[in-house]
């Protein structure tokens, strides 16, 4: 018998679970504070400044929500794939391809009413985003090709392709030689509600829809079963290839929709940098939400606060963006580590400890 032994927790009360998480976040903030100190800044100024930069005024809060929207939609997409243990790390590429589809509609189809244009852009975005996820899903389902690397490589190809369009055939003649795609007409731009583009409504609706899909539909249930065990799914007579393909189409389609939202409402054009790392950040947020659609909403808002706070201290305190990245990394490391204490109980054998002390 060792002094310290570890055993799996059978069930942990919800309250205690969130207490441990909160403790991890608190600890990580202390640690991040130490790092900020080492880097030569005052953490007692930096951390409050980050918070106030994210939620301090109405405009800053709007900025935070603007960052939360793409994160929520992409995380939902990632969630559907991850539920099935399909490691889709190609969110970036799917966002870009979605933006490409939306932009094609926005730049080429004229004369439709605004509503129809926007719907058509969304459909085009979801088809192209879905297609970009379908390619690796097809090879995974038919030949067992590793999807992690496949989806990742497709990111680079999508980015290079859009860069090519941006510098070549799609370059706007009005841009005075600057490599830029033409700006969308007003018809192709998402309207605003309460000062923020209606992407926030889309995101909220999708949270509910994905939650219902995963927990209350047959397909959603099948996706979860395939993720838990392909053997079980096969015994139950499920068509695994079909489930993999449907789930990744949804996953890529949602990421593509993010591309449409960003192109239409934020950039108002197509650019190779519009995915802004959301495809990667969404993996982390989806994971921390424990692949639960409702939790995704809250985790993404927390993350958006971190992102916006990081952007704010660049301007207010001239702290480089890289510091915010490091703080983000440190907080993530702590939260990742804390998951262990949620799942396992560390027992200290006091008898043995005392015996040792006596001896």
């Amino acid at each position, binding site marked *: 018998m060792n002094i310290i*032994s*570890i*055993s*799996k927790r059978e069930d942990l009360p919800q309250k205690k679970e969130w207490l441990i998480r909160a403790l991890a976040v608190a600890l990580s903030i202390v640690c991040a504070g130490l790092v900020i100190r080492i*880097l030569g800044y005052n953490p007692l100024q930096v951390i409050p400044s980050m918070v106030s930069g994210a939620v301090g005024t109405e405009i800053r809060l709007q900025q935070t929500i603007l960052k939360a929207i793409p994160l929520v939609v992409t995380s939902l997409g990632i969630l559907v794939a991850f539920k099935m243990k399909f*490691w889709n*790390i190609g969110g970036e590429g799917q966002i870009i391809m979605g933006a490409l589809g939306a932009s094609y509609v926005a730049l080429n189809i004229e004369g439709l009413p605004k509503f129809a244009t926007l719907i058509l852009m969304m459909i085009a975005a979801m088809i192209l985003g879905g297609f970009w996820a379908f390619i690796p899903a097809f*090879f995974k389902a038919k*030949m*067992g*090709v*590793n999807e*992690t*690397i*496949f989806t*990742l*490589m*497709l990111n*680079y*190809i999508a980015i*290079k*392709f859009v*860069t*090519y369009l941006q*510098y*070549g055939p799609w370059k706007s003649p009005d841009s005075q030689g600057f490599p830029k795609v033409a700006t969308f007409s007003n018809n192709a731009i998402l309207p605003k509600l309460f000062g923020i583009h209606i992407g926030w409504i889309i995101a909220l609706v999708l949270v509910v829809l994905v939650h219902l899909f995963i927990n209350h539909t047959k397909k959603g249930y099948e996706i979860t079963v395939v993720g838990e065990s392909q053997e079980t799914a096969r015994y139950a007579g499920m068509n695994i290839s079909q489930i993999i393909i449907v789930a990744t189409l949804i996953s890529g389609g949602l990421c593509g929709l993010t591309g449409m939202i960003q192109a239409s409402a934020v950039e108002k054009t197509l650019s190779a940098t519009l995915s802004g790392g959301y495809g*990667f950040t969404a*993996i*982390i947020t989806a*994971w921390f939400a424990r692949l639960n659609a409702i939790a995704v909403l809250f985790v993404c808002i927390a993350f958006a606060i971190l992102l916006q706070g990081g952007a704010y201290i660049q301007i207010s305190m001239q702290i*480089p*963006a*890289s*510091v*915010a*990245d*490091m703080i*983000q*990394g*440190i907080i*993530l*490391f702590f939260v*990742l*580590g804390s*998951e*262990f204490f949620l*799942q*396992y109980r560390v027992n200290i054998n006091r008898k043995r400890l005392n015996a040792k002390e006596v001896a």
Partner: protein
Amino acid sequence: MDGFLAAAIVASMPMMFATIGEIITEKSGLLNLGVEGLMLMGGIMGFVLGYETGNPWMAILGAILAGGVGSLVYAILTISLRANQVVTGLTLTIFGAGFASFVGKTYVGLVVPPALKEFFARIHLPILGDIPFLGPIFFRQDPFIYFGYLVVLVSSIYLYRTRFGLNLKAVGESAASADASGINVTLYKYLHTCIGGALCGLGGAYMSLVMMSSWQENIVAGRGWIAVALVIFASWNPVKAMIGSFLFGGLSILGFRLQSMGINISQYWVDMLPYAATILIIILSSRKNKKENQPPADLSNPYFREER
């Protein structure tokens, strides 16, 4: 032609170090997706120490420590705390990129000091360097590359011909059986994750110290991810890792060569080649079902003795 191939060797080195590093890590059953971040950390620490001390050995030590410490964080989280390997690896990449960008902020555009340039200058190896065709390609290179050859050799012998290598294989194939036969599974996993990380760090340092001889923002530019893919291409074999890196090194400088030869092809299409080739490779390598080409059976399964 041999000029192009010699340049391809240079371009292949960062990926080769990182691929072999990741092979060693994966052999112990851990999938570390933080390679890109580790290369950036090694690249910047190697450059900073080299720049500040003017001592090439300090530069190399800095790169090894940066990669080693970075992967130690990964090891603690995934081995001892059983965190998800994919998410931890991605987080390591985010952290590493932030770290390199912050530390490197004041070094952007600076060039390595002359003492290092001299140390890493090309050496025409006697006899070997005079072999027709092969000599100019392989043996008129810089000492860092010769060290790379040595890493291929030593890691091949270590993995296939020593007791430690066989034990490592056992850990990666089935941690439970290895544990039952008395191998210290945790120690093996920690040690090889850190060695792997140190090699990734060296790959990054090759970029900043020798290949570019200067520090640039995001210097690694996706090579870490290609290395993760090359591990599959190489089917966990260091010699094949060298061949794969060589092919990719060639592809990555092809566009530049073609343009200088007057062949007009869009840079963006050429830039896609390494990534498209990676996809082709993983599709093709999924078709060969030979036993030695398979990943370690216990790859990315956390091992927990109490749950056996």
